[in-house]
């Protein structure tokens, strides 16, 4: 079906055959890799096996370097990828890939047999001949080469290797460098944990006269509350997350930042993140000692790391936007119309999530501060109301139908836990009975009226058209493609922590938008789903659906 026909009929264009084949082959390779890596252990004790059997233990390292190098190669090719994809599709038009696929499957079977002979039996039963590891590596390489041959012609790969030799070399170096950095960071884990341990102990001594400190166990705290600072808690995770966010920021805003000064943000961000982690641990002990151990172990324990990450990462970004040392030009005082619209679309969801993170941090169990989300998100929607005037707020029976369909899918994929195994007061809101009614009122109000609006404005109002064109306000719902609908729905599913049900729900709302041609259809569909879920929860006591 050609694009003109799909446009005339108002349906989404189908995926091209090449894209389908590429996705299927990627999935096949992923399944093969998972089967082999989960099925065989290269790290097992070699015992009486020949000496070369120990070398097989380096296979995961090779796989790691290969994956990191592959990812780096794709990033390096970045802007040229669409052109290369077109070239690959053109050159592979008459490619007889079926034969290559058959060869790949046979080779994969052979490789699995050789691997099983080397790794599945007793170490003493491993054949002593040096030919075996050679056959193993040769068959592994053959599997990969035949997979590449299935994807495109050998001529294409040869041209790619010739034209992009520099990128291949750079990606290989990045792969090895990533592995080396991983090894180095693991070696530095213990010293960093000791430094964090010392700093937390010193900070606690400023507040508490008696501080317990057990250096051998890396445990520090007070008489009533102690924290074990494992290497993973020493600050590396936060530093890694902040470095990633700031690298992304430097890339996205490269045209507006001064280089090389802006590169200073990376070490500054890493240092700030490490300090924030030491403060987090100190606050954890102080909270557990002086306020509530349950609160410290509950929400604060889970959310404080993310709050520190957001404060450091977003703080550095916001400050540098206005600092002449780092930015070429500060943002114009008058906010462009499209930016105001984007803020109106995204702002309520950001406020909703910020409230969720903050209220979770001060909750020791249950979601009793849920009404705060309703209030803050409602206020954000009210503050941005000027931005919604361009949207046609109407409703239709079709939107209601989409909402009911999504509700049915949701209940099938996310069945409620048995009612008696879960009490509302036990799990959701440890509140007195009188306040539970108020809480339920806010819960229904939020899930039926406020949250659907905030989520649809962000996902179907901004993310979906943004995936179609940079100038997202100009994108009509009928122009939204399959890729954009699918990707925005996957992100929607990730946000809900329910991959499949969330993705299908997102697709349903995207199709409602596309069919009716206005955002209100997606909002009405979402509201309908949530209203039916609320009715089901209240009538069947299926509280787990509100978790």
């Amino acid at each position, binding site marked *: 079906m050609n694009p003109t026909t799909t446009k005339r009929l108002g349906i989404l264009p189908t995926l091209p055959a090449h894209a389908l084949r590429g996705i299927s082959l990627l999935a096949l390779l992923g399944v093969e890799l998972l089967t082999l890596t989960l099925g065989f252990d290269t790290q097992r004790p070699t015992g009486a096996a020949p000496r070369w059997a120990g070398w097989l233990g380096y296979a995961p390292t090779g796989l790691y370097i290969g994956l990191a190098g592959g990812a780096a190669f794709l990033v390096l090719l970045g802007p040229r990828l669409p052109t290369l994809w077109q070239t690959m599709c053109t050159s592979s038009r008459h490619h007889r890939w079926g034969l290559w696929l058959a060869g790949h499957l046979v080779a994969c079977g052979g490789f699995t047999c050789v691997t099983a002979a080397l790794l599945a039996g007793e170490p003493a039963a491993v054949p002593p001949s040096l030919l075996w590891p050679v056959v193993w590596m040769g068959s592994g390489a053959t599997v990969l080469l035949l997979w590449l041959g299935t994807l495109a012609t050998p001529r294409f790969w040869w041209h790619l290797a010739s034209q992009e030799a520099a990128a291949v070399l750079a990606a290989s170096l990045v792969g090895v460098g990533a592995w080396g950095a991983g090894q180095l960071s693991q070696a530095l884990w213990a010293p960093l944990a000791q430094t964090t341990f010392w700093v937390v102990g010193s900070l606690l001594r400023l507040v508490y006269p008696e501080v317990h400190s057990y250096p051998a166990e890396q445990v520090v705290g007070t*008489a009533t509350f102690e924290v074990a600072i494992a290497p993973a808690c020493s600050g590396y995770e936060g530093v890694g997350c902040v470095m990633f966010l700031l690298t992304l920021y430097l890339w996205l805003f490269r045209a507006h930042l001064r280089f090389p000064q802006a590169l200073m943000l990376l070490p500054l961000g890493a240092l700030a993140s490490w300090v924030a982690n030491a403060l987090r641990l100190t606050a954890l002990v102080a909270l*557990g000692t002086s306020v509530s151990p349950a609160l410290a172990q509950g929400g604060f324990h889970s959310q404080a790391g993310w709050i520190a990450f957001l404060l450091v990462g977003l703080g550095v970004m916001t400050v540098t936007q206005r600092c002449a040392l780092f930015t070429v030009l500060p*943002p114009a005082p008058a906010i462009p119309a499209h930016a105001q619209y984007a803020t109106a679309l995204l702002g309520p969801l950001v406020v909703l999530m910020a409230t969720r993170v903050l209220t979770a941090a001060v909750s020791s169990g249950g979601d009793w501060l849920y009404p705060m989300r309703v209030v803050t998100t409602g206020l954000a929607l009210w503050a941005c109301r000027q931005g919604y005037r361009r949207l046609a707020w109407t409703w239709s029976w079709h939107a209601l139908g989409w909402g009911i369909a999504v509700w049915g899918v949701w209940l099938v994929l996310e069945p409620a836990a048995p009612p008696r195994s879960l009490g509302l007061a036990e799990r959701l809101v440890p509140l007195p009975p009188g306040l539970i009614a108020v809480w339920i009122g806010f819960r229904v109000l939020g899930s039926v009226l406020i949250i659907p609006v905030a989520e649809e404005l962000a996902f179907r109002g901004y993310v979906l058209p943004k*995936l179609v064109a940079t100038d997202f306000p100009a994108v009509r719902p009928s122009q939204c493609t399959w*890729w*954009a609908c699918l990707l925005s729905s996957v992100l929607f599913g990730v946000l809900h922590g329910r991959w499949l049900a969330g993705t299908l729900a997102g697709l349903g709302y995207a199709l409602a938008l596309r069919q009716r041609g206005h955002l209100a259809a997606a909002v009405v569909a979402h509201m309908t789903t949530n209203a039916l879920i609320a009715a089901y929860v209240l009538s069947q006591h299926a509280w787990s659906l509100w978790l």
Partner: protein
Amino acid sequence: MRRRGTKILVLVGLCWLWLAGPVCAQNNQGNQGNQGNQGNQGNQGNRGTRVSAPEIDVGAAAGALTIAAGVLAILRERRRRP
């Protein structure tokens, strides 16, 4: 769209790589027999309550990442020329 889709896919892939580190670190901790990693180890006699404190709780990632992505998008829109 294709170029934009490629960029988004690369970014999503990088996000996965980003999350893979903490996930592996937490799994490794669990595998190494670090009892009570995710919570309270209970009362340790006269030593009070002892907890281990993983820095990043992957289960709570969605909210924080949504905020970071939302703020980045808003800042970028402010810099984009119409």
